[in-house]
């Protein structure tokens, strides 16, 4: 594992070559951003998380043990930091979120495909936001980022079976929340 081009870049960086970190960042920044965006649903927050993840990576790379892939390590930082942001936000916005949810539910009776499509975008975001943070991370990484369950298991420090099970639960929770849109074309 130590001879991959990526690990060579890390060694270069550890030897003091700043360009090597830039290269690592170029290779991974989009994925880090998309995972954060998928979990947080907000561009500004995702941008903050991406920035912070690479600052932390820069600081901590000296502790990298080459036991996992760099991307696994980086995505773990991304997921942990995003989860931390979600928790802070959940508590801070707890009551207002309930109000939003209530408002959306109270719109159920409104007719019209256009209105329903407009609502759908919001409702998808709400549905994703309603998943517990770790389950949300698992869903986003597998469904949107197409990471294998095995890789997600490495990132999350859990078994592959637990990841699969959590993913299935996430899909079923989303279905429960979105079933009224099932016939929307």
């Amino acid at each position, binding site marked *: 594992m130590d001879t991959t081009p990526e690990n060579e870049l890390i060694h270069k960086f550890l030897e003091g070559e700043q360009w090597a970190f830039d290269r690592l960042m170029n290779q991974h920044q989009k994925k880090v951003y998309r995972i954060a965006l998928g979990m947080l649903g907000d561009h500004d927050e995702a941008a903050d998380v991406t*920035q912070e993840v690479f600052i932390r990576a820069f600081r901590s790379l000296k502790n990298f043990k080459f036991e996992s892939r760099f991307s696994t390590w980086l995505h773990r930082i991304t997921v942990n930091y995003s989860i931390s942001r979600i928790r802070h936000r959940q508590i801070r916005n707890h009551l207002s979120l*309930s109000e939003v949810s209530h408002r959306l539910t109270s719109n159920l009776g409104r007719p019209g495909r256009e209105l329903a499509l407009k609502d759908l975008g919001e409702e998808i975001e709400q549905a994703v936001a309603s998943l517990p943070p770790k389950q949300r991370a698992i869903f986003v990484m597998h469904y949107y980022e197409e990471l294998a369950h095995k890789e997600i298991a490495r990132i999350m420090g859990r078994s592959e079976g637990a990841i699969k099970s959590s993913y*299935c639960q996430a899909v079923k929770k989303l279905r429960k929340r979105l079933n009224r849109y*099932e016939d929307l074309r």
Partner: protein
Amino acid sequence: MKTFADHTERRHSRTSCRLVQAALVEYLEGQLPAGERDSIAAHLKSCPRCAAERISLQKTLTIMSRREFPEPDERFWMELKGRVREGIRDDRAPSRRSSPVPARAWAPAAVAAAMVVFVFLWWAQPPLPPAPGPRPTLSHLELEGRQSLKALGDTYQDSEAILFPDSPGDSLVSLLAALPRPSEILEQALLGVKMAEEPDLWESVIEEETHSERPVDALLEELSEDQLRKLSVQLNRLFG
């Protein structure tokens, strides 16, 4: 564990439907081995209920594909790189602390953190005796948290301590210590309430802490909306 392929019942018993439905998401994603996939396909042809479940889950996955992920332009990535470089530079400057938490935010947070520890102790009255063995206990963690509070500013502000705790016991203490905002104070006090309500659960979390890097996460996952709401009210009374 029994899979659907192992299950030889021909009739659509509850068990066979349950096994099919448990595997449907993987089936839809084409991730099952051929044998299991064929068995499920055969079942779906003759079981309207499971077939309807398959269609419903498929529709959910299709709906989720409509979620929009706008791709930032090149300018965004250039600016991001600039901000990261700036963050790294600031980080190296001796005048700046390594924490992402602004220093001015720390002083009130430290006071509030002390209040939280006080609340912890108040809730845990009478204090628990020290642990007889090496296993960390609530009182041990409280003591550690209280002793650490004075040194927290420098020791634990670095959020790496939370992400990559040096020792399992550190994660709880460092989390308690690194309270930069009122929302986090709320979170910690929430732990206190949970702990007072369900000491067994808390003990099990502490036990888990000896084997896991992120035990506090596990506890927080279990909190219900109701508990959050109750606690918000309680804390507004305490800190509001």
